[in-house]
């Protein structure tokens, strides 16, 4: 792990520079925001395949006979029911029922689980987990030793299969297995953050360059491209995936964030009672999807109704696939119904916005 002016570099840093990436600071890391351009990269992932360096993200490991039930009490979703070889999205919640982080939990062996957490939250999450974990469960934070490379897009499976010691099409969505990729020991999961089919490949830092190069080479004829954080954001927003720090944080509860589906309220977990209470009473505000006519809404812009500020945009961009200016925003629950007309205040002007069904983009099931 090298550092420069306090910013961390992933093992693929030199590759990004050589590929002509624009590098920016992100959550303490110097990361590629774009290579060819955000729109071109976005289209590559929707139409062919893209390769992401997500090595900044955090990887936690839990081991012991009590690991499964311990994580079931820390994470909002059904971890106790997670079969070996499967992964599940869920939330780390606190006593107040607000969101510490959103995570994916992987049951890699009967008594061994992995958790992927957001880069900006690694230290906070590790402290949170340590505070609540029973003493019999071994916890390792391997974030700084683990690289994460994600081939995503309709052609990701065929490209990854060419360099893996297995046909990765045998992995079901949200399945996880261990295999070799480009000769390196790898954990491969069929997960992602793009709204497309895709995989996340975990390897040791020392193997990252080899795996990255092999995937770019194997996907050359299929149009694989390296993808930066810019397109990662437009892809996830079209697919209506929450971004920690935007839609969700320690002031938001899962119900208002539209993440009630990740909360298994008939089990005990940290924050269950306050979340159940919000669900029962109904939240006062909700995340709504907006389409804006005549301007690009951005994080922090006020949402207005008849000239009065009633909410706030959490994420907004131009959606390259849907070809519309789209946003997620907290609005009063009563104004969150599809078809409601609101406005977003962009540069002192109230620009008309309509509440629409989300996700903004959903891939067709046929390949």
């Amino acid at each position: 792990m090298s550092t420069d002016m306090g910013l961390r570099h992933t093992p693929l840093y030199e590759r990004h520079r050589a590929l002509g990436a624009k590098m920016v600071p992100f959550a303490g890391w110097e990361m590629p925001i774009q290579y060819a351009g955000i729109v071109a990269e976005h289209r590559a992932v929707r139409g062919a395949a893209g390769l992401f360096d997500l090595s900044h993200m955090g990887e936690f490991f839990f081991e012991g006979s009590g690991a499964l039930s311990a994580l079931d009490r820390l994470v909002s979703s059904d971890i106790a029911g997670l079969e070996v070889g499967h992964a599940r999205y869920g939330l780390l919640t606190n006593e107040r029922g607000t969101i510490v982080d959103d995570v994916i939990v992987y049951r890699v062996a009967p008594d061994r689980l992995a958790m992927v957490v957001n880069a900006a939250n690694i230290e906070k999450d590790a402290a949170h987990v340590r505070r609540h974990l029973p003493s019999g469960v071994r916890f390792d934070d391997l974030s700084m030793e683990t690289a994460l490379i994600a081939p995503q897009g309709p052609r990701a499976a065929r490209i990854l299969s060419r360099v893996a010691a297995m046909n990765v099409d045998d992995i079901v969505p949200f399945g996880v297995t261990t295999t070799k990729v480009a000769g390196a020991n790898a954990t491969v999961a069929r997960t992602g953050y793009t709204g497309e089919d895709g995989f996340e490949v975990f390897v040791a830092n020392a193997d990252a360059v080899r795996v990255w190069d092999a995937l770019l080479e194997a996907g050359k004829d299929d149009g694989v491209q390296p993808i930066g954080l810019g397109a990662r954001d437009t892809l996830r927003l079209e697919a209506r995936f929450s971004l920690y720090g935007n839609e969700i944080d320690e002031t938001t509860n899962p119900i208002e964030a539209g993440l009630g589906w990740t909360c298994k309220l008939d089990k005990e977990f940290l924050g269950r009672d306050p979340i159940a209470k919000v669900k029962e009473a109904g939240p006062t505000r909700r995340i709504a999807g907006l389409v804006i006519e005549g301007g690009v809404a951005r994080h922090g812009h006020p949402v207005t109704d008849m000239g009065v500020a009633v909410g706030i945009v959490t994420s907004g961009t131009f959606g390259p696939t849907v070809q519309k200016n789209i946003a997620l925003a907290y609005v009063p629950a009563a104004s969150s119904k599809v078809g409601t007309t609101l406005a977003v205040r962009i540069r002192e002007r109230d620009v008309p916005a309509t509440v629409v069904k989300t996700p903004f983009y959903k891939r067709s099931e046929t390949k």
Partner: protein
Amino acid sequence: MTVPQDLRYSKEHEWVRIDGDTATIGITAFAQEQLGDVVFVELPEKGATVRQFSSLGVVESVKAASDIYSPISGEVVERNVKVIEKPELVNTAPYQDGWMLKVKLADKGELQKLLSPDDYRAHIGETPGGGGD
């Protein structure tokens, strides 16, 4: 980076083309490259007045909004409707179909405050005389 010889430039990366007392305004190839994919352009209407080095409008890329500053003062005689409908013209043809406003020049003397092509090349860190076409 393309820096045409027949234009004058502002430090804020706008260009101006003079034809009689009409000035055509746009942003440079360097500016569009820095912005990335332009997805929205907001321009004043015909009859509006723009002032030298004051904001005349906004370009939004996928990532962020940026002000466009007018390189000269005058009255707007035409705005480019095509660039409002197809903002990507700013990326694909910044000096041609991607122009933004035509303005009736208020004061030709203001042109003295703008950069020559060589000075603009130096401003963006390129060798004077290199890269033009």
